[in-house]
């Protein structure tokens, strides 16, 4: 198995595992942390593609800023549900954490240290990024030439995200009026009592994501929505 294949498979596994964790864990903190794993996995994939800048942005902005903000919010709202820190909810949790941590580190190192020749085995269909020019410049240039319009209209998306977050976070000013249309389970499933101050951190989040992430700007919104 070639190195890039190995890297891809492992990083992909981490991504998927993290994503599953986001959905499956019952503890919100664990959800947020699983998200970090996914984001890291993506960062590794970026590195494997020689997109170092993107990888860095991925780690700094997403993992570093956004998820940390999520964690802040979660912590501030209080993780009141009984968390028995002494007992591992999952057997071998700590061991697994160590293994995965080391794996990610190792993968990053492998990806970083192995040259472009090793990482890119067969030529891609598209032209490879030229290594003569730093990828930051390349991204910048792409953003301000070919994708300038896409880059600009991202602003609208972010505005919508902010407005939407504020609107949805506002506490409803009256009783629920359509309880009779439900059989009850749906009501339980939906957390109606939304915390009123979620809006602000979300707003910051959306703004914080602005500078770095160029074209694929949907994730902040997805995350915002998913987080509640």
């Amino acid at each position, binding site marked *: 198995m070639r190195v890039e294949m190995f890297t891809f498979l492992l990083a992909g596994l981490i991504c998927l595992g993290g994503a599953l964790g986001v959905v499956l864990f019952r503890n919100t903190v664990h959800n947020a942390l699983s998200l970090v794993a996914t984001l890291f996995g993506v960062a590794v994939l970026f590195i494997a593609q020689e997109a170092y800048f993107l990888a860095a942005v991925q780690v700094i902005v997403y993992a570093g800023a956004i998820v940390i903000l999520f964690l802040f919010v979660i912590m501030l709202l209080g993780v009141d549900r009984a968390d028995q820190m002494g007992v591992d909810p999952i057997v071998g949790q700590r061991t697994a954490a160590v293994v995965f941590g080391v794996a990610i580190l190792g993968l990053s190192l492998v990806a970083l240290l192995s040259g472009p020749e090793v990482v890119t085995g067969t030529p891609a*269909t*598209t032209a490879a990024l030229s290594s003569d020019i730093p990828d930051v410049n390349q991204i910048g*240039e792409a953003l301000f030439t*070919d994708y*300038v319009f*896409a880059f600009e209209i991202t602003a609208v998306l972010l505005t*919508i995200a902010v407005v*939407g977050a504020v609107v949805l976070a506002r506490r409803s000013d*009256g009783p629920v009026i359509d309880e009779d249309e439900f059989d009850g389970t749906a009501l339980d499933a939906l957390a*109606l009592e939304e915390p009123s101050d979620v809006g602000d951190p979300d707003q910051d989040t959306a703004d914080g994501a602005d500078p770095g992430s160029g074209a694929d700007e949907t994730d902040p919104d997805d995350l915002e929505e998913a987080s509640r």
Partner: protein
Amino acid sequence: MIIQVPPTVPVVPEQLDPSAVPLAVPEIVWSAVAPALVLMIGGILLLTVVSLVRKPLPSWFHATWTVATATAAICATVPLWQRVQDNGASSEMAGTVGLDGFSLFVTGVICVSVILAALLLEGYLRREDLVGPEWYVLMLLSASGGVVMASANDLIVLFLGLEILSVAVYVLAAMHSRRTSSQEAGLKYFVLGAFSSAFLLYGIALTYGATGSTNLAGIQTFLADNVLVDNGLLLAGLAFMLVGFGFKVAAVPFHMWAPDVYQGAPTPVSAYMAAGVKAAGFAGLLRVFVTTFGPTYREEWMPMVAALAVLSLVVGSVMAIIQTNVKRMLAYSSISHAGFILLGVAAASDAGTSAALFYLLVYTFMVAGSFGVVTLIGRKGDGRHSLEDYRGLSRARPGLALVFTVFLLAQSGIPLTGGFLAKFYVIGAIVDEGLYALAAVAMLTAVISAFLYLRVIVAMYFAGPAGAEEGSEEPAEFAGPPVRIPAAAGLALGLALVGTLALGIVPGPATEVTRDATAELTVGN
């Protein structure tokens, strides 16, 4: 995997020292994106104005602003349309924005849907004790996304347009804060919408991998010049993109969200979703599949689209007739209408595209009008949507019942309404391609769905009082509080009625426009 690596694709210039040469920043032609800009600026200005003013502005102000903005956007398309007709299509902003008749026409359709929905929203918000210019802001911004999507000449821009469009609608669907079903709808729409966006994005990535470009004109040229030895990647990309678009236009089997969301969302928002969002989704579908992959890959995607169309037609109409909630009925009927429009896509011809566009225009009026009536009948609480709630409407509100009848008959394709000609054009386009069986299926499902519209008419006109023996001449009593028709909603219904009938009686001007509204991919400057 492919024979030739395209030489033109890399974006990297030859120079080694990037600081030495100034960036070749493309010319920014603001006028080319004028309609989208008008909508964006209108939305953001509205937000700014209402945040700066101390006293809350009257609710009519928001609606008027929105209608004015959308009207301005329509006006902005006129000189551009003239330009396209005179000088041909062009693409601006480094070839990412296509300026052609197609995009301008869809822009118009989306703006019309915004106008109608905003007019409905005005009375709705007052009735439901909801406040907020945010509804209108989100709607305007969402429409700008739809416009961007319609004029996208680049898959990335297309995707961004789709997200702008969708994210705002996710929020709008959930904005009736006191209705749990609204929140449920928003959540459902969001989760499935994000899911479908991921599919679309994946498809875009695979297509990029196979063709080396996200630019539609680039892809078209590449495929015209090169023959892919192994096109698995591209086919997978096409399939994923089709799934993504299928979700957006609510085609079976990607329709699961539509009934719940249409039913739960605030009714004017449902109107906007059925009209505007669908139009934008189809614009993307047409541009990517018919225009970009039409010349080279028609044989591959056409059966897929045709299958989606037939499934949508059959499932949409059959499921619709067993519903008892009128909003849900309309949702299923909108699925079957999507099937009809998909047939226009499947024809993969200019006639098919024109037919689909005409259908979208007519459908905007029909469905916005239908949901408009449903908005009013829902009354305070937006909860009276059962078929029972329409019993005896013809006596309580004869005008409203008649207008609803016109919309319903138009949807079933009765002549002298736009609905008939819309179906007529689609049938013509697919018969022209020799797809007789598809045409027959489409018409027969139209009969099935006619049953559903008749059920509503029966409830409004023929039904006796609840529990009475059938055939008694005792008229049914209209239950519940009286139906109030706010002026703005009345205007919206009037506009929709005029649109539905005018397009059926004097379709000439509209068909001339749809005929000229062809999509062309031009390589940017």
